[in-house]
């Protein structure tokens, strides 16, 4: 999933301060799962903004709403009846959702309420970690299902650096060394020979090296 974290309240207050009525918009997908921008967080942020603004002597009308998916034009269309009644939108979705709103509602200022972080997985309750950088040419089949691009601090492609100690990355003991994980997994799979295979310099084009990417499925595209 795409993970995100709520921005500090002070930053959000400055965004909304000039407006009288805003739409605070959550998303029911990834940001709900990582507890950053779902229905519940919309409610919490709305009261946070109300209180903070009251303290500084101003008021704001906040309309709360949560869409099934903010990055999907079909769901964004639902907002049409609400848009005229507000001066600005604050979105609690990831950057894809925010941009979809900006595209659809050209005349309305749109502000992000979360910092979109990475594509990751939940390690345990309340902890999410990066897993994939969308390099466009997945190597997991060669690296025992562990990604050296997203999980090795140096994006090394041919085994660990000299800083790998006791399974930890040199950047900190709380970070697993991706290559230690890869080695352990390959051993378990009896694929140690994969470890010595030399991978060529990576082609970064599918990973965005040639600019913004697009998928066009001829069989589905209208």
């Amino acid at each position, binding site marked *: 999933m795409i993970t995100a974290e709520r921005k500090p309240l002070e930053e959000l207050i400055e965004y909304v301060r000039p407006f009288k009525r805003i739409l605070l918009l959550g998303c029911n997908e990834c940001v709900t799962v990582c507890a950053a921008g779902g229905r519940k967080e919309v409610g919490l942020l709305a009261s946070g903004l109300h209180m903070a603004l009251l303290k500084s002597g101003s008021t704001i009308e906040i309309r709360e709403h949560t869409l099934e998916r903010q990055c999907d034009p079909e769901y964004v269309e639902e907002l049409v009846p609400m848009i005229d009644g507000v001066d600005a939108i604050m979105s609690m979705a990831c950057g894809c959702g925010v941009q979809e709103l900006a595209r659809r509602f050209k005349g309305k200022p749109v502000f992000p309420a979360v910092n979109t972080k990475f594509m990751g997985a939940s390690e345990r309750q309340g902890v999410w970690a990066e897993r994939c950088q969308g390099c466009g040419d997945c190597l997991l089949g060669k690296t025992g299902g562990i990604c050296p691009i997203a999980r090795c601090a140096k994006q090394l492609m041919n085994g660990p650096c000299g800083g790998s100690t006791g399974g930890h990355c040199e950047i900190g003991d709380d970070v697993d060394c991706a290559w230690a994980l890869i080695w352990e997994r390959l051993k378990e799979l009896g694929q140690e020979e994969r470890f010595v295979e030399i991978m060529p*310099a990576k082609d970064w084009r599918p990973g965005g*090296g*040639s600019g913004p990417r697009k998928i066009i499925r001829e069989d589905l595209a209208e």
Partner: protein
Amino acid sequence: MSFQKRLQSNEFVVLAEMHTPKGVNISRLVTDARRIKGRVDAVVVPDMDNGIMRMSAMAGGVLMQQQGVETIMHVYCRDRNRMAIQGDILAAHVLGIQNLIVVHSEDMSQGDHSDAKPVYDLDEIGLIKAIGQLQKGKDLAGFDLDGEPSFITGCSIAPYADDAALAAELSVAREKVAAGARFIITPPVFDLQHFTSFLAKVKELGVPVIPTVFLLKSLAIAQYIANSEPGAHISDELIRRIRKSPDREQEGILIAGETIAALKAMTQGVLIQTLGWEHKLPAILDIAGL
């Protein structure tokens, strides 16, 4: 007189562009430099221009200095992060390079290593500011330098297709000047009338303007530019002139020389681009009366 001093005293500057080799054979570069020594004020050395991997500009610049030719070195953001760029800028100063141009970099996908990972840690304006900060004795992280470099830094305006694109280029150029660029290189001039109105707009930026004069090596190249870059303003008349000429190569040289001669009365200098035909530079300069 140095390039910087000439700019300061409003003297016309003549610059020529020379690429480093793709490899280590520097004989042509050195011969070309010797040939124009004393006839141009400085040689502009691009780095991996157009995304083509080649010997780096710093080595090219040092080779020029060794031949007694002043260098203006390209710096840009595609291939190096802020660490590498700052390190190279310090090194350039120590090796005697006093002039930099912060240029736009062709997208990696257009070059010959399109699978490489682009960097873009800084942008052009950020890079101009970084150079200024190094000159004040601080690096980008705010740490003190043990000895600060000094340069005159310029910037460039990219070719533009229409008025809207030009307006955008000019507003970015204004920011570059505010960030510390002290001269500006503008796209090739093929039509003096059009250039006159363009120049009026660029002059508002308040820094010396140095237009490019591009050697049209063949009719095909002229036609290609005319068709693919409407903003270049290559007129039908110019195409006709090259087509009708009994010696088209010589005609290109004549056109370049005449353009330079005409620009002498209008601008602070010229940058002559000959793209591999650097041996023709003396002939162009002869015609320009320089």
